[in-house]
């Protein structure tokens, strides 16, 4: 499934994605950006490209029309020779703590949901925790507490804690989405959390 179809399916389950539209050319991209308001992100949409960043297919933090037009050219350049559906113009995510949220269908226990901190925390320290679906609010509270890096979520060094209600809502949705659509594996990576809510940046799943 393509990125747009994935987005649509997620929206059907109430996941709130950052506002986006597909542009077929640079002028369309400029018009969309105006509507969404800068800063924005460009992402190449191609059925032949899985790792968008590897081909320079993602440009972030674009703040004006001039940079947008240049970035648009660059993105197309990187995808030269590939089948292209268009370029996704999406609102830039807010700043905050990057979390990885995953889902998996376990052979014995069924659907499960996983939570970890993005970047080195998950990859180097394997700081990750999980629960079997369905989960309760108390489960999410415990998951947060179980992460070794939990002070980063609950407000380390004078930073505001992330929105736990937003995390709960998101994890509940992951469980529901998985069981309704029989998802084998799901990655929301990363999801940026701050004290107000969260922005899902990238999504991948397999049915």
């Amino acid at each position, binding site marked *: 499934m393509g990125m747009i179809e994935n987005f649509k399916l997620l929206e059907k389950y109430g996941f709130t994605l950052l506002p986006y539209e597909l542009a077929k050319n640079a002028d369309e991209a400029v018009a969309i950006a105006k509507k969404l308001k800068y800063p924005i992100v460009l992402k190449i949409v191609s059925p032949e490209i899985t790792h968008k960043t590897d081909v320079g297919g993602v440009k972030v933090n674009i703040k004006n029309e001039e940079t947008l037009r240049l970035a648009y050219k660059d993105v197309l350049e990187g995808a030269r020779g590939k089948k292209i559906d268009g370029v996704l113009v999406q609102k830039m995510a807010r700043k905050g703590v990057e979390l*990885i949220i995953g889902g*998996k269908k376990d052979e014995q226990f069924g659907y499960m949901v996983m939570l970890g901190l993005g970047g080195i925390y998950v990859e180097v320290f394997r700081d990750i925790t999980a629960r079997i679906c369905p989960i309760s609010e108390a489960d999410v509270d415990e998951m947060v507490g179980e992460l070794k890096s939990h002070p980063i979520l609950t407000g380390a060094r004078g930073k505001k804690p992330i929105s736990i209600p937003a995390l709960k809502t998101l994890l509940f949705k992951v469980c529901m989405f998985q069981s309704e659509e029989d998802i084998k594996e*799901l990655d929301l990576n990363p999801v940026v959390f701050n004290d107000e809510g969260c922005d899902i940046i990238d999504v991948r799943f397999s049915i």
Partner: protein
Amino acid sequence: MMKKTDQKIKNLDSIFKPKSIAVFGASNIPNKLGNVLMKNLTGNKFPGKIYPINPKYRTVAGLKCYSSVLEINEKVDCAIIATPAQTVIRILKECAQKKIPGAIVLSGGFGESGGADLERELKRTADENDIVVIGPNCLGIINPYSRVDSIFLPMYKLERPKVGAISFITQSGAVGTCVIDMVAKYGIGISKFISYGNATVINESDLLEYLLHDKETEQIVFYIEGTKDGKRLLENMKRVNMEKPIIVLKAGKYGGALKAAKSHTGNLAGNYLAYKAAFRQAKVIEAESLEELFDFVKIFNQTLPNGKRMMIITNGGGLGVLTADAIEENGLELAEITKESSVKLKEIIPEYTSVGNPLDMTADASVDDYKKSIEIVLNDPNVDGIFIDVLFQTPNMNEGIIDILNSASEDRRKPIVVTAVGGTFTEGYRKILESSGVPTYGAPLAAVKAMKKMVDYSLKSKCKKCIVRKNKKNG
């Protein structure tokens, strides 16, 4: 009508509390499985009828031997089958004819070693005839209450535990063997021991359910490698753990599941993450090793603590400090005792010292000082649990301390743990304390970790029946 699972659970009584047992493969040849089995059953003074079955003999272990179970005129409750795998299905069919409701299949040679078809046939035969089967490929059970013992290991090599309140469920026979041996050595009493092998008919969830209703079981220890029905296991662990604490040890944590996963988080997950998640959701107590398993088992005969505030009483200053460090490192707290307790304690300790936590009574402390200080702290509302760190090496310590620690352990106002670090002499004391049920540890950290597990269990599990039990023992 009774549900199929309920009937199954009920039928397990025929295995755990049989009035008569037929032993298939009973033998007169020394050291043969069927020989050791007969010796153990008769040696263990099983009060019911034992029917050895083997067409080769007229008598086994002094009992009349039958060539077929169908020759027996009386009712038979339980079949213990110790014959080659290929004969098991035929024997089960005979058991069905004889209307035997329960069987333990010790024999190997099924799914675990290329006999998957045979195992499916075993399941079909058992299910069609409503026979509950433990095994195959297992050690079976010990029930010291009914004196059933299907463990085919000689008594002189493998000590049998005394009667008690802890039940053990183990998937592996080898680990089961070690566990029984250690349990016997520690002087821990057991209610049921069950090695369930391939879990073909009766699986771990059925056994948890059975033990939930078993009046002789107050605590469950569970060794698992893998389950085929995680959903039911999670549900049953949740339900049972609310009434009887479950201590679980999972082996095979880093198996092949890693290979299968594709996505990023999936790669990191592995299958253990799912088990760990399930354990946490069920709020069961997970041990990371066999050593920890026993450390945790020992403490759960204590009253559940109401909170994290711990008091340390010692005659060895440094020992107390090590315990205090471990308490803070492991998420427990040092209690702040009341003024009243403080005044009373001041009278016990030498004048040149002050009352604190740890309460350092110094190496001059007598057995009687321990008695008094323990009583004061047991009464203190600001204390949830007590660490008693005894330096047995001082001149003033003598065997009088045993009685004092025993009564503190049985007092039930608060949980206590004893830490005794030292060599052969101290070890001697430790063993005496352990075998009389006082949770005793050879190092401060082990004691603290065990207490932490009990605090977590107490605060998280909302074990209602546990509190009922606590009150009963109070009264």
